[in-house]
């Protein structure tokens, strides 16, 4: 027992000796309060603070080139060329009729309902892209592992175990996607029913059966997972 304790003590001591303070990178992340204080004071003269001020100056210069946040977003490209970008177009056959002009009294009722519809379309677009990106990421990780495992330290059985975990996680992700998809399609139908209420009040009766339903089916198909 004493020998074991002595051995453990020696191992810990050796490890401490090997890990000098200077052997590791020093990484300091600023908190919200710290950042606010720095920006407010602007009186720092130390090298570190000057470095941070320089970096913030570059950020301000970059952001200052744009009129507003929308302008900045419009001019940004996706980080990866293979990254999914949501497609919000509607096929002509699935487009809905509308009897409400914007200046009419129905506009208030309509604006709210259409706002909700567009919000859900936006989230569905994002959901679809998250799925597509994750699928691509998983496929590329598996292909990368399959190719590299023969020449890499992580070989054979170790990679097979890791691969199994990746596949299992992806399968779990598919279930999560399906659940979110169901929730969002439910929310989409509710939004279309709201438009139907406005149409019943101010325009065409039976709007959902004639137009809304076709659009709902179109979006159901568009975002349904087919693998």
């Amino acid at each position, binding site marked *: 027992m004493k020998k074991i304790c002595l051995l453990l003590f020696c191992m810990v001591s050796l490890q401490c000796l090997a890990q000098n303070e200077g052997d590791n990178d020093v990484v300091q992340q600023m908190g919200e309060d710290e950042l606010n204080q720095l920006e407010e004071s602007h009186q720092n003269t130390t090298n570190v603070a000057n470095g941070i001020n320089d970096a913030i100056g570059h950020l301000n210069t970059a952001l200052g080139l744009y009129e507003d946040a929308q302008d900045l977003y419009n001019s*940004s490209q996706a980080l990866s060329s293979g990254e999914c970008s949501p497609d919000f177009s509607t096929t002509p056959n699935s487009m809905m009729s509308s009897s409400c002009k914007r200046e009419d009294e129905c506009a208030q009722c309509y604006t709210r309902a259409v706002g909700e519809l567009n919000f859900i379309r936006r989230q569905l677009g994002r959901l679809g892209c998250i799925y597509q990106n994750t699928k691509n990421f998983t496929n590329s990780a598996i292909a990368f592992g399959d190719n590299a495992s023969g020449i890499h330290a*992580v070989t054979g059985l170790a990679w097979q175990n890791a691969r199994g975990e990746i596949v299992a996680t992806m399968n779990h992700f598919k279930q999560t996607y399906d659940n*979110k998809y169901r929730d969002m399609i439910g929310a989409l139908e509710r939004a279309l029913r709201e438009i139907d209420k406005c149409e019943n009040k101010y325009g065409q009766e039976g709007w959902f059966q004639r137009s809304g339903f076709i659009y709902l089916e179109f979006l159901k198909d568009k975002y349904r997972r087919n693998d």
Partner: protein
Amino acid sequence: MYMRLSIFMLFALALLSGGLLRAQPFTLDNITPTELLLVDYKKEDTLRRGLINVTTVNQVKDTAWYFVKGLSMFSPVYFGLTAPEGNGNIRVQLCKDNWKTANRSGETGEKRHYQEQFKTEGDFGIMVIAEQKPASYTMITWTGKEAKEVGITSPFKGEGEGAIKEQGGNFLKENYLYILIGLMVVVIAYLVFKMKKSKN
């Protein structure tokens, strides 16, 4: 109700995009990247408000790895690395899928600064290679609020007044055959009526 739904949806998406699978670029190597945590920034400023991470580093190893998560495809992202005077060149690679493939890359060079602007969903990795050690630098990762206009087109056939005007303009063109037949029927009926009258 709408507000509650919005919050629920955002929460649901955050859970989904929060990295069930991914939280950093894939690797078989024994790499443990440092997560750069985003904090609130300039809540009152319409352009600059969003989330930010400011990190100062004194790097003594050849390569350092970092990652940022929680980004939205509807928000712009800025990444900048600035080194103070006296530092050697620092190379930077921004990676999405794995650490071997850089999606954006560059170096600080004589300007002692490197920056990129892009949009992405979820996360991305940052690989920093110091040509001269130790290297000190500051990294800033900023992401703005989600954009309102993201290209959502109207699902309605000809929105509002414009559509109605367009329908009115095309009425003659689309129905000229029926109008012609109608006119002919009227003319024939008139002629038949005239003929009957003249017989009497």
